[in-house]
């Protein structure tokens, strides 16, 4: 019975991990199924989603499925909704997180599904700074690929172009650079960090348009986080949000004076080990902070369930949409 299931050996390390994300059910099918995609029959094994079937054929409509990763048990996050397809039985559904049931008939070219993919891709772009020419992932970016394949020329809602709204570049780690202005919140890095590496460093935090990737110890910078610099987050990042230091300008268009840092304008720099930032647990010549020490220290200061900026903001507790001026 399921009551036993939850008591299967959970490594003690995971107890304190709080990624801030929902516990999704397993969305794969219960058994193998034959699905018709744009007129072609595809048989997929148990545990498959409609996207597995869609991926197996040459579809009529382009299905970016941007946030989908499909390896290492990462995802489906199903957040970007650029995988919407029309099914005969259930209407428009997200292919990446909809079980492939026997007899399902999928149409990728249907107007409403195609419109949803198109609009949702533009919505992703609306919150992306699109400074490709100074981006270290230029030419190897899944968002760039999807936008080209989709034929995006002028996104409906523009792009994140207001430099006042940019989050500072986090260049504080010796190994990993974070540019949240390019983040599409696919959550792959959070899952790689927590579910695969079981490090418990990254988390999803905030709500609405303030949603961001942050650190479970409440740190503002990578340097002050409990990161062990394993680099898994970098390998799964679909965009230029997480890049390896040293190649952050590898694919920058070589115009003198233009680089990733000054494209953003604000940067968290590395503080020296003897610096005044009060960095905890770090000593000279140490590559990564002593995370055990720091975690202990953090938990003494504040219980994990009540720390961090994503706990209830008192100002937003009471519904009052007269709070600020409109327009």
């Amino acid at each position: 019975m399921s009551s036993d299931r939850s008591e299967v050996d959970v490594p003690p390390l995971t107890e304190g991990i709080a990624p801030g994300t929902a516990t999704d059910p397993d969305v794969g099918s219960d058994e193998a199924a034959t699905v018709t995609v744009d007129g072609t029959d595809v048989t997929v094994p148990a545990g498959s989603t409609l996207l597995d079937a869609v991926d197996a054929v040459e579809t009529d409509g382009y299905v970016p499925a941007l946030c989908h990763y499909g390896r290492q048990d990462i995802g489906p996050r199903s957040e970007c909704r650029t995988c919407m397809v029309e099914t005969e039985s259930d209407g428009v559904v997200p292919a990446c997180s909809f079980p492939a049931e026997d007899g399902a008939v999928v149409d990728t070219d249907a107007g409403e599904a195609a419109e949803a993919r198109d609009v949702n891709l533009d919505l992703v772009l609306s919150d992306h700074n699109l400074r490709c020419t100074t981006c270290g992932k230029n030419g190897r970016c899944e968002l760039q690929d999807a936008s080209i394949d989709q034929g995006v020329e002028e996104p409906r809602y523009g792009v994140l172009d207001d430099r006042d709204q940019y989050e500072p570049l986090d260049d504080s780690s010796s190994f990993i650079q974070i540019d949240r202005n390019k983040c599409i919140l696919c959550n792959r890095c959070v899952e790689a960090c927590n579910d695969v590496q079981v490090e418990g460093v990254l988390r999803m935090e905030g709500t609405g348009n303030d949603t961001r990737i942050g650190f479970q110890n409440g740190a503002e910078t990578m340097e002050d986080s409990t990161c062990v610099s394993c680099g898994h987050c970098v390998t799964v990042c679909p965009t230029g949000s997480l890049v390896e230091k040293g190649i952050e300008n590898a694919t920058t268009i070589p115009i003198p004076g233009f680089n990733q840092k000054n494209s953003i304008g604000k940067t968290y720099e590395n503080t020296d080990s003897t610096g005044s930032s009060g960095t905890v647990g770090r000593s000279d010549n140490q590559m990564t902070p002593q995370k055990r020490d720091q975690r202990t220290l953090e938990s003494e200061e504040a219980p994990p369930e009540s720390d961090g900026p994503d706990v209830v903001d008192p100002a937003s507790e009471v519904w009052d949409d007269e709070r600020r001026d409109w327009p």
Partner: protein
Amino acid sequence: MFRTDKMNSIESSERTVVRVAAAGSEADPPEAVKRTDARVVPVGSTGVTALEPLVAVTRGGRTAFHARCSVDRLEGVVAAAEEADDVTAGDPDAVVDHDPDATRLPAVDLPGLSAGRRDVLGACGWRRPTSADDHEAAGGFADHDAADVFDAGADLRGRGWGDACHDDPVGESWATARDADGDAAVVVNAHGSPADALLLASAPLEVLDGATTLADAVGATEVVVYASSDDARAVETAREAVEAHPDPVVPVEVVTGPPEYRAGEPTMALEAIEGNHRLEARLRPPGPERVGLDGRPTLVHTPRTLAHLAVGLRGDDGDEGGDTRLVTVRGDVETPATVELPETASLSAAVDAVDVDGTLKAACVGGRFGGLTADLGVAAGPDALADAGLGTEGVVEVLSEGRCLVEFVGRRTRYAAEENCGRCVPCREGSTQLANLLRDVYDGEYDPEGVAELVGVMERSSICEFGVNAGRPARTATTEFALEFEAHADGQCPAGNCFDAREAPEVTTST
């Protein structure tokens, strides 16, 4: 202390009974009242708070009602009734003759209370909220065959967005949960809705009766009552009612979640109950009825749904037949009220139960992300509301003549942009871009096709009902009140709020 002999139901009392119905905690009755033979019992709100404290003096089959009766006046009312040996003494606002053993608030001709029916609301303002005796005297705590419960579930539709079966018949999910592996759970999701908070505060045993009956029928091993930490009265009453329940078939626990609106979404409710510090919606299918609380099959229903089940199983849902809907009217009104309407009655019957501030211009029908309409002739049932493009949350927010609807919709959309859980693009980025499109109207760029396209994608591809509904104010307002938007694009605000008033104090609402 009161004379509250807890072993007896009020209805069996031979003495004069004085019910004090109020939404807040009652002041202690004056000494003089306590010295009389009358039995003073605090009961919950009727839903029509404008009349409260509402004092009902009952002797035998006759009840006299005194509206807005302060503690000081209560003394005089009771004294007069006792002295004259006549409940109608003391100048009551209404007198009703009824069955001496009445277990629900009798129909009374007072503003607000005369609207609709009182089947599900019957206990509110009449029975002591946490008295098992009162509930039992009304036919509660009866045993029901699982087959009868499932029969009732075939026709019962989930009430409110907090219900995992919102507007859908609940029976199918019950069968799924019963047949699924694992120990099932029943979650009573009372988060956020005023009618649900009312039921929990005034008739919690009706809700618990429905929940435990359902738990028994599907073989669930636990009931969790979940409410906003802001609804202190409802939470406290629910806890007392759990204690008072004479024989719950399964353990019942009361849990609170953060007060944010999104925390009422069924899967975010499960996240909150499980103790996640940050709430976001879960993917589905499979829904909670297969994989819910701690991975167990879980039925998430609102107190409204469960009270309808309990009342329906007793056959206590009126002679006229047909389903009813709880409708809360708030917004630009003197005092909000919750009434119970037959599904065929029009929403205007609910609005008639309150005093509108000024003249009604429009209403936002269906909760925070309801649809805007000027026509309240639409029936209260979910099919009629859906056909009219309106919401079925059971809340009618009145907007009076001075309101600018462009401003209202803009603020509501910005609220969606700030308060969504942040998970899916159509809701997170869509609501932000929708707010931008509405703001552009003030710069002369009104793009109704763009609004319609974006709202359509939000409705079609969001993970949960928050995003599905977030664009409804904008969609309905741009179709029904297009002229207002066009006027704003021309630099005119018909209500006179927006342009010259940018520096003026903000409009305030009573919500």
